[in-house]
């Protein structure tokens, strides 16, 4: 019931937004334009909120040179899904609590949202979320990445994350010995 009500409210909010043309246009590094509700952008991203409040929003597309079009599409998608999934009235208070409360487990839709992403897309999204100051999206993407690391060996992690081993054999052995209790497989 609550969800339905929330959807209704969100739709209403969107109708109002459309009527007032209350959206912002964002431009990716490769020149693609994306439109996102001004309200959602301001609520979910501290950087965009600052730009909106400071009047530095360009009607023809605010340049976000650091974010590629795929990542920006995901950001906008996330903003829209977020607006649809939670009652808008509750969002204002929860967006405050995200800043103060300890990490909250991702919700089902957030899990699905990050699960479908490729590794590269996920990393681009983490960086975009970090750049735009989107705390909740950063939480959700970081959680996903940490899940990908659990129970893996250093070699497996390097492979997944495409990281070069910059240790010598001796250094690596020394680091392992420091915490010998954690390594018992070989």
């Amino acid at each position, binding site marked *: 019931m609550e969800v339905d009500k929330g959807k209704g409210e969100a739709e209403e909010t969107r109708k109002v937004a459309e009527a007032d043309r209350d959206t912002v246009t964002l431009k990716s590094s490769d020149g693609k334009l994306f439109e996102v509700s001004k309200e959602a952008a301001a609520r979910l991203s501290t950087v965009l909120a600052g730009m909106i409040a400071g009047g530095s929003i360009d009607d023809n597309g605010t340049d976000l040179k650091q974010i590629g079009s795929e990542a920006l599409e995901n950001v906008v998608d996330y903003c829209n899904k977020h607006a649809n999934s939670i009652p808008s009235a509750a969002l204002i208070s929860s967006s405050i609590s995200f800043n103060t409360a300890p990490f909250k487990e991702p919700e089902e839709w957030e899990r699905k949202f990050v699960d479908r992403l490729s590794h590269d897309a996920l990393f681009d999204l983490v960086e975009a979320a970090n750049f735009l100051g989107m705390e909740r999206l950063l939480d959700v993407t970081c959680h996903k990445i940490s899940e990908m690391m659990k129970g893996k060996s250093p070699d497996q992690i390097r492979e997944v*994350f495409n990281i070069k081993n910059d240790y010598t054999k001796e250094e690596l052995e020394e680091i392992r010995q420091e915490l010998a*209790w954690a390594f018992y497989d070989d």
Partner: protein
Amino acid sequence: MEEQHQQAGDDDLMTRLLPEDVLAQILCLLPPRDLAVSRCVCAEWKGAVDRRRLLRADLLPLSVGGIFINICAHCYAEFFRPRSGNVSGNLAHLLEYSRWFAGTVLGHCNGLVLLDGCVSNPATGWFAPLPPWPMPTELLYQEAHIVFDPAVSSHYSVFLINYGPLYDENAGGELQAAESQEWPPSHYPFHVFSSATERWEERPFLRQGDAVGTLADVRLGTKQPFDYHRRKRCFAAYWKQALYVHCHNNFFFRISLSRDEYRVIKPPPGISNSVRSKGLVFGKSEKGPYLAESRYADRCFKVWILDESNHNQWVLRHCNKHLGLMLPRCYLDSEVFGPWILEDTNYIEDWMCWYEEEETPATAPPSAPERALKQQSDCGCDFDEDGGFTLDSTNSPDDGDMYNAGSSFCYIDDLLVFGFHPFKEIVFLGSGIKIAVAHDLNSSKFQYMGSIYPTDFSIYYTYGNDEIVETFVYTPCKLEAHGQPPTPTLAAD
């Protein structure tokens, strides 16, 4: 932020470097074991972990904080610990959360202590009552084991394993029919409590490998009626995310915690596979699951290691044909100063009770350390005050020493195994309810730990129950287990 991003976008080395803030945010979601692994990935990651002190190995159960000792007819488990230790093993305040064997310790794993009906972390004061415990039917013999690995997860679980039916002289038709059933069964139903779900569940574990035989084959070879008070409990060990359980008939189960599977492991050659031997102690030490046997009759002491890479064979690690040691005679007096001390929980709790009944103003009894210091004797040995084990104070006697020692020395040959040091090849031994020593398997040296003789023990002794029933080597964990403590007022008590 600009600078960070440029760094992150630099894929020249095919190395994806996230801004350190983000990397740290990811890493701090990892449990300690994965953080330790992350330090090995690359220097950048190690730097992120170390600079922000994300990995607090000092909170993990990586040191020995004491030994819980259950003594027959004692209400509470005694706690024997290094004098320098700061964690108390007095769990008397948990009595009201427990069932019958209230104050005795049923099990321990990585800092969490299992009592009958409650789980406790003595290092943090946290405890949580367990929901009603699924009881075995009359003829089944039940063992409870706790599993907790804070390096991997803050969740813990409790396994209840029902054995049997073990023995019933008046076995009826139903039981006779059970005789031919294979043991252990292909699907063993264990009752498992998980702190993640907060309830008991019956979970069938699938047997890997062959059964041992039939139920009739594995009965306890005793005609004595089963005596809960005098039994020697089975021990368990947690190793590499598996629970190893020493069964009533000296077989072992290796229970995989990630898959619902288990495997039967035979006892080492020469160990009875039907009668529970009193001198057998199973536990975890440096290289995995260990089994020690001390035979009082011929003073033979053996230690095996389970070799999992080789079809779960037991490999003889240590064999001592006359285990015993020479000690200065003064060590045999009770309450001689040693690096370890008995907390004397029963004496202190009884003392408090008695004074409450007498309505005399309660003043605390002299604490165990004070009493011991008063009687500090000058045996002239150097002790390792930080609770470590240098094991250089007393050498294992050879045949010559044994008989030629002067009158100020005495030979102790009734050593019983208390348990294993979980990280070094050291065995803790006790001589009756008198003293405890540590024995290094590599150097074969001993070190005197201290007196374990409880104050006013003669009161209990008159009942004829002077036996140490179980011992648990305790490793303090300062990380909190998952779960909510009960109401604050109770926790404060």
